[in-house]
């Protein structure tokens, strides 16, 4: 046996003996480990995480959850990124559109007894209408003002929506009636995949493809892309900016509505402030992926969702820091590569 292989087995044996064969989750003995060479480290990892030692089921399960969450964040993030790309405005009220769509669907099904496919479509349409309304009412008059004013107005609209919801509907969480099609789960290779996750993934793929199609192949999409480069020139070209912007808002809000309904089926408590944290995290996802880029937003959403779930799964003692992971990622990205993963490189 050559000396390298012998060394390899010695290291494996030493570490397996020391740590009892399995890696105590969340307590890698990094300080001792870090001093070893790369080969020893790989030997150790092979010994410990080799076939039969790792709980592949657990890892896959977490990946499934992470993907679901990631798709939901991605759907929201696309709306953020489109509005920012076109208007350079961070629409703080985007998260509240999630809440609005949830409530509309809830009321449609429970009070008006509309069959759920229709209620969902109605919710998407009405939320798109609310998005257009917000744009026309609040963002259009300040389009030429400094960006701080727009940001403050967006914050104001967000709080307005949340508190209106609180006043009109009350603070007690309502249960979202999930149709039976989305309940239950499949068990594949020891991993439990909820049906809802499959649906979320499918819907996200379809909607993402649709949005990419609209942005790349249609005239409106071209106008949107042009607007994100230079608003003045687009005006000069005789394109009605207001209509394009309204269309952008409608599209973004519609996606937010879809995300909202799926979110509610996953976490069935509907309350006025439910959109705040998902909204912020979706924005983080958009920034990570590159604000202004639709595929970047989806990618950012996936990264954020997976990151959150995996970090909490590997270090369960740190589950309280879950929200902080999103913001820490944001700060790191903004400081190292502000244009995000799929964004262009800035000159300075």
């Amino acid at each position, binding site marked *: 046996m050559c000396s390298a292989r012998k060394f390899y087995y010695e290291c494996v044996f030493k570490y397996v003996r020391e740590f009892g064969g399995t890696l105590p989750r969340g307590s890698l003995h990094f300080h001792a480990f870090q001093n070893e060479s790369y080969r020893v480290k790989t030997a150790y990892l092979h010994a410990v995480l080799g076939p039969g030692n790792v709980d592949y089921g657990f890892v896959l399960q977490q990946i499934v959850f992470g993907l679901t969450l990631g798709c939901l964040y991605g759907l929201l993030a696309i709306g953020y990124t489109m509005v920012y790309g076109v208007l350079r405005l961070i629409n703080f009220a985007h998260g509240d559109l999630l809440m609005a769509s949830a409530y509309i669907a809830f009321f449609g099904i429970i009070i008006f007894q509309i069959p759920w496919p229709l209620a969902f479509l109605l919710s998407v349409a009405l939320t798109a209408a609310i998005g257009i309304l917000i744009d026309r009412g609040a963002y259009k008059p300040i389009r030429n003002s400094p960006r701080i004013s727009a940001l403050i107005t967006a914050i104001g609209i967000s709080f307005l929506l949340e508190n209106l919801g609180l006043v009109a509907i009350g603070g007690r969480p309502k249960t979202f009636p999930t149709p039976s099609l989305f309940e239950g789960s499949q068990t594949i290779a020891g991993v439990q995949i909820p049906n809802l996750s499959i649906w979320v993934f499918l819907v996200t793929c379809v909607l993402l493809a649709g949005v990419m199609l609209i942005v790349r192949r249609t005239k409106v999409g071209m106008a949107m892309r042009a607007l994100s480069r230079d608003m003045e020139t687009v005006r000069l070209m005789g394109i009605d900016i207001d209509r394009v912007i309204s269309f952008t808002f409608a599209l973004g809000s519609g996606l937010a509505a879809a995300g909202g309904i799926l979110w509610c089926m996953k976490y069935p408590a509907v309350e006025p402030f439910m959109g705040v944290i998902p909204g912020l995290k979706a924005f983080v996802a958009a920034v990570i992926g590159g604000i202004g880029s639709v595929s970047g937003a989806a990618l950012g959403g996936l990264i954020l969702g997976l990151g959150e779930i995996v970090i*909490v799964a590997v270090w369960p003692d740190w589950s*309280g820091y879950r929200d902080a992971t999103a913001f820490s990622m944001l700060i790191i990205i903004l400081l190292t590569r502000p244009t995000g993963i799929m964004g262009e490189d800035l000159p300075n």
Partner: protein
Amino acid sequence: MTKILLVLSAILLAFLTPAWGTEPVVIGAYLSMTGNVAAYGQMGWDGISIARKMEPEVLGRPVEVKLADTKSDKVESANAVSRLIEKEKVVAIIGEMISGNTLAGADHAERRKIPMVTPTATNPLVTQSRKYVFRVCFIDTDQGRIAAKLALDQLKAKTAAVILDMSQDYSVALASFFKREFTKGGGKVVSDTKFKTGDRDFTPQLSSIKEAKPDVIYAPIYYTECALLAKQARDMGLNAPILAGDGVQAPELIELGGEAVEGIYFTTHFHRDMVEGERGKKWLELFAKEVGKEPDAFTAMGADAYFIVVDAIKRAGSCDPQKIRDTLVATKEFQGVSGTITMKPNGDPVKAMVVNKVKDGKFAYVTTIMP
């Protein structure tokens, strides 16, 4: 022009000043009408309103209850109590429904020497070393003990997983009492996880619980989180029975949880099947007539707090907060809606505990236990 303005403002002022007549006795109520535990505040308020309809007067004067919304938040609770005492000049305060908020408000009441009766705050610290704070429910040391006994004897559990809400004093204290009693009784706590109020995704905690394979899950948390937790647990294939505290008895538990919460046992204060005594039966009737819903623990305890305060005012014969406090401490064998209340000198009553279960989408009565 100015003359017209003066006349108008005088008319407006005249209508806004309270009517001359008998001055009402003002009692304050600080409850969470919005926020995470809005169900409790609203239920408590329902109970108080019906109780007020039953006993609207004391010492020949009408009773007025001023409501302050705490938004389920500690700091708002402290502010609400301050406002009630300083602005509304109340003679006694009812509230809050959850221990965390009551602890925040009790400081102010104690400092200003206004008696406070909490309907359902079960944390022992609420009345500890305070002379002006009382409660009409049991305390968590007993609740933890009874829960441990239930787990060991009735559910025959040898291992337990505890999951608690680290933002709530109630949850933290009750979990620690349960752990102590459970290990004393010979059981082993195999998993101890936490989350924060407002968390909606419990998959990390549930994954680690599932790995530990407990015989019972003790979840001394509030209804929204419990319902979602139960649902996610059952979705994951984790089928261990769930034991909870009085924080889960709200209609939202069944609405949100659906099938998943069937079979949850919990210790609580009240079930309509155990009501004896005149006052209780009359209140039940009036409640069914006015509100039409099933009364829950929090409604009944809110009513009891109101009844006991009004009774103390009657016995004291005056609206002086100090005298009210002295009569409250001397309460003996008071017939409330949820049972007989005898106040101990430290502000806690001798009170029975009820065990309920979720069966067929309703809260079913199991048994009463004296501590």
